[in-house]
């Protein structure tokens, strides 16, 4: 293998700009590392020029619109993640609340059959006390987090319009 030379970056820069100081050109002829750098740089630059000549990049307008479209899609997917999490929480918490309510009523049976009528105030008041308190509060907090995060992504999506800006 060749040794390294401090002038390699100068040689590379000269090959890119086309400006070769006489001393550097002379040095490159005698230094194998710099000669190697020049060979490789010139080959890569030839490749770069060929690519630039033969390929037209996509129009900025198309890339802009497509980027906005993908950005909106990305934000919607992010929002969906949080709303799916909220749905999963619902699937966990609804049966749990139902079971807990039934268990409460079974533990404290009332004589009259009208005791099985809905007693929302009493049931939900009882839910926030006792052993189920932490479980219920955790559920409320998690649901709030999911709603806030999902909504933030939806707001961002709404603020990423697809149509071109009116300045153009």
């Amino acid at each position: 293998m060749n040794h390294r030379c401090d002038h390699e970056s100068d040689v590379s820069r000269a090959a890119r700009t086309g400006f070769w100081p006489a001393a550097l050109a002379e040095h490159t002829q005698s230094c194998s590392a710099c000669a190697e750098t020049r060979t490789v740089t010139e080959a890569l630059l030839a490749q770069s020029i060929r690519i630039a000549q033969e390929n037209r990049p996509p129009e900025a307008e198309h890339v802009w619109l497509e980027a906005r479209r993908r950005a909106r899609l990305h934000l919607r997917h992010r929002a969906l993640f949080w709303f799916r999490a909220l749905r999963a929480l619902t699937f966990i918490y609804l049966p749990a609340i139902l079971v807990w309510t039934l268990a409460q009523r079974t533990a404290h049976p009332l004589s009259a059959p009208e005791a099985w009528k809905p007693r929302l105030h009493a049931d939900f008041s009882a839910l926030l006390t006792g052993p189920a308190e932490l479980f219920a509060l955790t559920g409320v907090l998690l649901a709030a987090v999911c709603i806030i995060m999902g909504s933030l992504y939806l707001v961002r999506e709404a603020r990423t319009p697809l149509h071109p800006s009116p300045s153009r």
Partner: protein
Amino acid sequence: MERTPGVVSLMFGAAQSAAIDESAFRLLYEATCQPLRAYLLHLCRRPDVADDILQETWCRYLLHRRNDMDESQTRSYLFRIATNLVHDRARSGMDAAIPEVLERGTTPNLETRLDIRSTLRQLKPRERELLWLAYVEGMNHEEIATTTGLRPLSVRILLFRARHKAAQLLAPRNTPGNTPSAGSKRFA
């Protein structure tokens, strides 16, 4: 690698996105799209794939960019996104089953063009990546390390090896019978 936005960037993301309008984007795009696309074509060798990755690069840039980035950092950031996307695509094997197609306007009978191209194809993807960033884009070792996710010392060594390999592959075409490594001392 894709940067997952935290709560802060999520909260202020709308303001960041709004900060770049289409005219600003157009200026930035025209300044960087040609080198970025050439880099992608050099790495993945298929115009359709290069265009797709280019598009995704801009999309991710618009989503995750920071306002405090200067011109050099923006360029480095774009190349980093593009490099990571090429790596992701290579890992997933998405393009393995599709044969490579020639770029638009390529004239296959031009011996010199094909010679350089086929020579460079013999290099590993990582080597092609490092050589391009160093010698076409003129990045220093730190910038290349930022772009590729390698350590600067690793960049230095890998770049040296890649350059040596490329020079050996290119040498017979330029000066037949010449071996550039002859009589030289080993890199330490």
